[in-house]
């Protein structure tokens, strides 16, 4: 048992569970404060999400919906954790996601490109925004969080302007891919049949998981990943070891941006939602990615489950009784989870020191018994 507690993976898992529990608890208290009767049912509905529906077919269909949105969320969280490993907090993932959406929708609706080309274009657009942040960080020492936020807003207004060319004059939403860009719809690979004929389920889901594994491979098993992480631990030390620390910063933000950009295409090329060109706030996908990245203990594999969970409760939010509560309760819960993730370091420290304390006692006991043995020997 103690051995398990000592392994860092298990500690991350326990810490994440504690964060989830804390977030749900406070969310429940807020619901209680709004209206006590039905609060428990409401939080239950949030946690249940697709289980809320009684028929298996409907459950599968809504599970499909959650999975469809989990894929871009996973990409965003990969983007954030990748740069975080390099010591950079890429809050600009939200803007890179927006730019990716812009690029893939423009390519799909106006240029009629094939879906693979659209994904690549989205990745390039996201990477471009990442590179801007990286250049500013490496050469002008601009805090990546602040430049990221600025780029988020620049990207949003830019996207609204560009995509205004890809919509009906009467509508605020871009054309559906079904109507104007059939070639860009992601293939379903027959996955839709499994999920109660949910037409949006498709290749994005397995692709995003493949990317998670790829990110893990790059970070853990390649020289590049080692160099990037070394730069993250200590920029100067990496420099003295002969690593191109400036190049590493820019490169990691470019990769990070490409991942977030592809998240945009995994979202909009399913044709599940259309871009609203009058939108006045940066979409939450990139920010939820932060929640998923930290909840997953900053491991790509953990991020897979964390992304699903965050999307699960976000979708579950719409199941609350909307005449009393509001669906933003799940935003509240996921942001609380991020806040609580700030305490993970302390929690791990506490777990380690309590383990060390227990071990310390053991060794002293052992020493005592050894001493006793010695004394016995002397007596003889």
């Amino acid at each position: 048992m103690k051995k398990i507690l000592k392994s860092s993976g298990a500690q991350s898992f326990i810490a994440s569970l504690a964060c989830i529990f804390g977030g749900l608890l406070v969310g429940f208290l807020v619901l209680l404060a709004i209206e006590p009767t039905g609060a428990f049912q409401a939080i239950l509905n949030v946690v249940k999400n697709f289980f809320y529906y009684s028929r298996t077919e409907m459950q599968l269909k809504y599970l499909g919906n959650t999975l469809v949105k989990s894929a871009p969320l996973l990409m965003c969280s990969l983007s954030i954790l990748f740069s975080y490993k390099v010591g950079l907090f890429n809050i600009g993932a939200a803007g890179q996601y927006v730019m990716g959406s812009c690029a893939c929708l423009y390519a799909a609706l106006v240029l009629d490109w094939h879906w693979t080309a659209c994904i690549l274009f989205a990745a390039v657009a996201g990477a471009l925004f990442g590179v801007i942040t990286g250049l500013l960080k490496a050469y002008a020492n601009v805090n990546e969080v602040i430049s990221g936020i600025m780029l988020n807003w620049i990207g949003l207004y830019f996207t609204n302007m560009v995509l205004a060319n890809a919509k009906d004059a009467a509508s605020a939403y871009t054309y559906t891919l079904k109507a104007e860009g059939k070639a860009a719809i992601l293939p379903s690979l027959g996955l839709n049949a499994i999920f109660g004929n949910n037409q949006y389920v498709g290749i994005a889901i397995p692709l995003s998981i493949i990317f998670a594994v790829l990110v893990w491979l790059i970070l853990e098993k390649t020289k590049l990943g080692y160099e990037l992480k070394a730069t993250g631990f200590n920029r100067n030390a990496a420099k003295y070891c002969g690593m191109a620390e400036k190049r590493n910063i820019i490169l990691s933000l470019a990769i990070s941006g490409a991942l977030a950009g592809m998240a945009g295409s995994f979202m909009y090329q399913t044709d599940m939602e259309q871009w609203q060109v009058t939108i006045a706030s940066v979409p939450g996908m990139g920010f939820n990615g932060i929640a998923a990245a930290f909840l997953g203990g900053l491991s790509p594999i953990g991020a897979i489950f964390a992304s699903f969970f965050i999307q699960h409760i976000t979708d579950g939010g719409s199941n609350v009784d909307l005449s009393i509560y509001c669906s933003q309760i799940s935003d509240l819960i996921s942001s609380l989870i991020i806040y609580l993730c700030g305490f993970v370091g302390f929690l791990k420290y506490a777990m380690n020191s309590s383990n060390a304390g227990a071990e310390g006692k053991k060794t002293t006991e052992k020493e005592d018994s050894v001493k006793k043995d010695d004394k016995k020997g002397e007596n003889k």
Partner: protein
Amino acid sequence: MVLLIQYTLLFACILSLVALGGCFSEHSGVINLGLEGIMVMGAMGGALMMKYLPDGTSAVMIVLATILASIILGAIYSLLLGVAAIHFKADQTLVGTAMNMLGVAMATVIVKSINTISNPDDHSSIVQYISEKKAFVININGFEFSWFMVLTLLIVIASYIVLYKTKFGLRLMACGEHPQAADSVGINVYKMRWAGVLISGALGGLGGICYITTGVSEWKFEYGVAGFGFLSLAVMIFGKWKPQNIVLAALLFGFFRALSNVYFGFDFLKNLNIPSGIYNMLPYVISLIVLAFTSKRSRAPKAEGIPYDKGTR
């Protein structure tokens, strides 16, 4: 033209207030990236106060009560940052980000449920304060003078005096530069950092209410404050963490932000036929450019963002 000056001053007020908030917190050694969320919470406090004040309240009372509510709510919300960053050594970037998201989500949930309880068909997150807002402005020949302008000026002067001319301010700044040295001469670093965080919460909350009373008389809380908390941090960096420079930086940024509100009032700008999106982008683009040129030689407090640990040397 009058309109441009008016909005420039108003936006400069918001930016200076919030930037000063960031300035206090960073001088004490805590990076406050949660200013955006603090602004939202402060704005909500003020907006709800305006909503619930009885109809016959005098203008002075409205102004005082609203401002007080914003300041208190902003300061209370900043406790979240204080607890995590000062006592639990949490990653301040992460906590700040979480606070920004939490601020918007919490304000939306609270306002929506208030609206829904009073009217079951109302699911919006909008608070209206049309008549109360008039208490804040005095119309002088078309120029809408706002009490926030006076207040901001006073706070800027006060901040300068507090930071550079009082024992408290100098001690506060010592904690942001070298907390171990400050501790060795008997300054309580934790207390000073708490002071910095709480002041930044109060000023952030004040900036929030100033933001939602600028040009509009109702606010939809789902929107947050459109990156103003972060623009303020850019202002603070550009202003080199000094109150007197922060005001000037705020005026510059305020001007570009105001331009996007009133550009259609100028014929030559209108004739250029630039889409409104460009004007909306402008303050953010300018801030990026400015940051690129000023961050290299930044005079940031040396110990900012590093949790204080008595045991380290």
